[in-house]
């Protein structure tokens, strides 16, 4: 049985929960895997710390929470600080370079940064930063197949913004740190 535990962290309002929903849907509906998505949030709607998590498995997901993560997507400094300790040795860390500036040692991890929010702003809407991040995660951490991710994104955003979201996905997917 192969199992992948993904943690996504940031602020309320960044689409952290939607991101995990898209990953879970891509895995369970499009990739024919099993997945379980859960979320943690406080009483405040926006601005507070927010995290979501997905367990993707070839078998039925029994234990649904993420105590140690194989992949961590960090879209805020607080999210990075809080969840880096649960990233397992050899795990993949993907972070927004403009939002996570205070970096710790990454020697135990495969760490890659992307200016996701800046890319989203360049595309015209800051709100698609999470989708840029998902594109980046699809390529760098192979959490789900590119087609599954694109299918799940298209299903989960308003149809008039499909093109924008596909561009955001592609921007993240094509980004190479060494550029």
């Amino acid at each position, binding site marked *: 049985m192969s199992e992948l535990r993904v943690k996504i962290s940031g602020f309320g309002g960044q689409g952290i929960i939607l991101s995990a*929903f898209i990953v*879970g*849907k891509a895995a*369970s*509906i499009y990739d024919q895997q*099993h*997945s*379980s*998505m*859960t*979320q*943690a*949030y*406080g*009483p405040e709607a926006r601005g507070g710390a927010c995290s979501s998590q997905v367990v993707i498995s070839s078998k039925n*997901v*029994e*234990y*649904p*929470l993420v105590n140690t993560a194989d992949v961590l997507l960090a879209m805020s400094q607080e999210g990075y600080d809080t969840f880096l300790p649960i990233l397992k040795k050899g795990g993949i860390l993907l972070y927004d370079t403009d939002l996570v500036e205070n970096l710790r040692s990454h020697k135990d991890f495969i760490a890659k940064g992307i200016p996701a929010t800046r890319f989203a702003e360049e595309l015209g809407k800051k709100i698609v930063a999470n989708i840029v991040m998902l594109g980046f995660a699809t390529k760098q951490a192979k959490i789900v197949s590119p087609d599954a991710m694109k299918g*799940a994104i298209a299903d989960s955003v308003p149809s008039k913004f499909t093109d924008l979201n596909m561009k955001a996905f592609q921007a993240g997917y094509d980004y190479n740190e060494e550029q």
Partner: protein
Amino acid sequence: MFQKSRLHGEFFMQGDIACAEGALAAGCRFFGGYPITPASEIAERMAMRLPLLRGVFIQYEDEIASMAGILGASWAGMKSMTATSGPGISLMNENIGLGMMMEAPCVVVNVQRGSPSTGLPTTWGQSDMMQARWGSHGDYGSISLVPNSPQEFFDLTITAFNFSEKYRLPVFLMADALVGHMTEKVVIPKVEELEIINRKYTNKTPKDYLAYDYDESLIPDFAKAGDGYRYHTTGLTHDRRGYPDMTVECQEELVPRLVNKIKNNINDISLTEEYDIERADVIVISYGITSRTILPAITMAKKKGIKVGYLRLKTVWPFPDEKIRKLSEKVAGFVVPEMNLGQISLEVERCAHNNSLVKLVPHPGGGIHKFEDVLHAIEEVVHGK
């Protein structure tokens, strides 16, 4: 989402939403409620979907009115539901008792959060389990179903409606914030593939019909409102006509019937799932989300060579007394992890009755059990401590 029909197919769906879709599939066409985290998504979904299915959604001024509203809708012939969390149930309990006395079919969903009082609104707990059994004053039979996944939240919502119609009472669905807010694949069959139980209407003529007359099933038949049947109902102790009769004789006939109509059908109502029970030295009993969050501890115990079995209660009330009693004669003991400080473990103790050890592994809610704590309890039971 704005589809004018019941859904079918595969969905990546949140537990709360699966509950709402289960209700629609069961034929629920009336929702009365007041929003509360972590149950609001059920109301939100019903508000979007019901008007398109010729149903009615009412957001009441509070939970007291919500419960009264669904009793009224039930009495008018609709399958009705409300969804709330612990604080809301506390307010509904008076009218839940009225529903038990009137024998009004309906479903009451409690997406449990950390408590008491307003407690932990956005995180989970299982500390309302005894409230579901004894929340309203008086003796009455009670049915409580506990899902551990969005799929099961869908499935058990249908079962809850079926039981409520069959046995004529408000049925509790005891979910929790983790299951309610968890998203997983949910397979929704076509309506014709589902087993749906509708209420039983009388064959008698209006002249011969008595609203609370019953046969050996102990369950009175309904009459359709508007069909010319004379109807009276009350929260007071009542005779077979439904008229108040506040005598010891009437009380002695009515109240045991409310209890026995459930007790006599425990084999139909009690739903459980068992693994490795036969040769077990110790059996872990759990329900709801805890049945999933403690699984790693069971794996750890097995790796240590302990013969550990696992019993999951999908129906918590009525409690499977006989099953636990029989198992207690064969095993060293039971371990009961639950997200409260000891509620269902008391029932297990009652049934084990000194035949075997019972170890509670408590958690006050808002987090999950430490695997080591559950493992430690399993080891203690095996070593007879």
